[in-house]
């Protein structure tokens, strides 16, 4: 008779009588699935009995701090050498140069550099908040690692996000003047300033 899981556990813990223990050994020798079950319980119990040493709370807190304010990307964006992209004139671009000011209609903006082309659409309102939706299309096979929105006033990275595999992103923000930055490989490109609101 095949042993139950209760019996296998009891076997592994040495709680069975010699006759039943021998039957379980024989059942395992005759059946690969029984042997697998026995091994599974044995390995799990073995691992359970080892309580690995844990780092102290001080060390864990120091590791928490490794991310830093707004994360490592924030620091990277704040310090990166930037390549300025050029605005691409678009037929439906209602407001030129310094971006998108006022109005409730979505606005479309695109800029280009030797590293990537960036296409963004800004929509929303001061009441509901603003959303920047866009896509970064790298010139070569570089991966778009992160998108950052940096406020003009104080240089703070106010939003960070990772685009999807196709370079698409959505960033939420409040009214203000910003630079949109994109990290592509080790390069950081920045488009013309965007005035939102």
């Amino acid at each position, binding site marked *: 008779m095949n042993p139950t899981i209760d019996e296998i556990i009891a076997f592994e813990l040495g709680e069975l009588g010699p006759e039943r223990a021998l039957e379980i050994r024989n059942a395992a020798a005759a059946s690969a699935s029984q042997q697998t079950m026995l091994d599974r319980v044995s390995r799990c119990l073995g*691992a*359970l009995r080892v*309580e*690995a040493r844990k780092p102290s709370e001080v060390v864990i807190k120091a590791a928490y701090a*490794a991310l830093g304010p*707004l994360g490592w990307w924030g620091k990277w964006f704040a310090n990166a050498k930037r390549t300025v992209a050029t605005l691409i004139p678009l037929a439906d671009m209602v407001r030129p140069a310094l971006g998108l000011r006022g109005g409730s209609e979505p606005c479309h903006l695109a800029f280009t550099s030797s590293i990537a082309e960036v296409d963004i659409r800004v929509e929303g309102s001061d009441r509901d908040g603003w959303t920047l939706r866009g896509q970064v299309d790298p010139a070569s096979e570089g991966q778009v690692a992160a998108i950052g929105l940096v406020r003009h006033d104080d240089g703070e990275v106010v939003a960070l996000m990772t685009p999807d595999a196709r370079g698409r992103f959505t960033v939420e923000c409040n009214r203000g003047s910003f630079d949109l930055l994109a990290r592509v490989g080790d390069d950081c490109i920045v488009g013309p300033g965007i005035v939102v609101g």
Partner: protein
Amino acid sequence: METDDTLIRQAMNGDQAAWNGLVHRYRRLVYSVPCSIGLPPEGCDDVFQAVYLALVRNLTTIRECKSLPKWLITTANRESWRWLRRNGTPTPVHTDSQRQSESPADMAERLELQHRVHQALEELGGRCEKLLRMLFVDHPSPPYAAISQVLGIPIGSIGPTRNRCLEKLLHLVDKDDP
């Protein structure tokens, strides 16, 4: 429980709680590598810090989140040996001969299983976690009478409850099996 994939993506966006979750989830695994190699406590602490700094820098390059435990073990292993070289200790100070002869692959497998089992134990929570800790993790294990009193279950029910809890634990460990 949030998946590694979710925590990594959130941490990349600067989400401190998600990052803390990653640190907490793998604290035991990361720390166990330098301990297993035989580093002194200050070395284990240094390696722990170095691994999480490396993880912050490499969050976006870890494409396959299922491989995160392996990445952490490999990085902790490398940082441990670097620490030994830097501190003028070319060989670990381990006294356990069985561990000394263990291959890096075997060590990684052993530590990953330990991590999965203890992670599953935390996930189990409640009375099951308490009971299994008392029976298998605590040294020495308290007598049944004490367990009965602490958990409020009759002595005669401890065995069957233990088995039910172990079954649940096995199920959780299998679920996380890569």
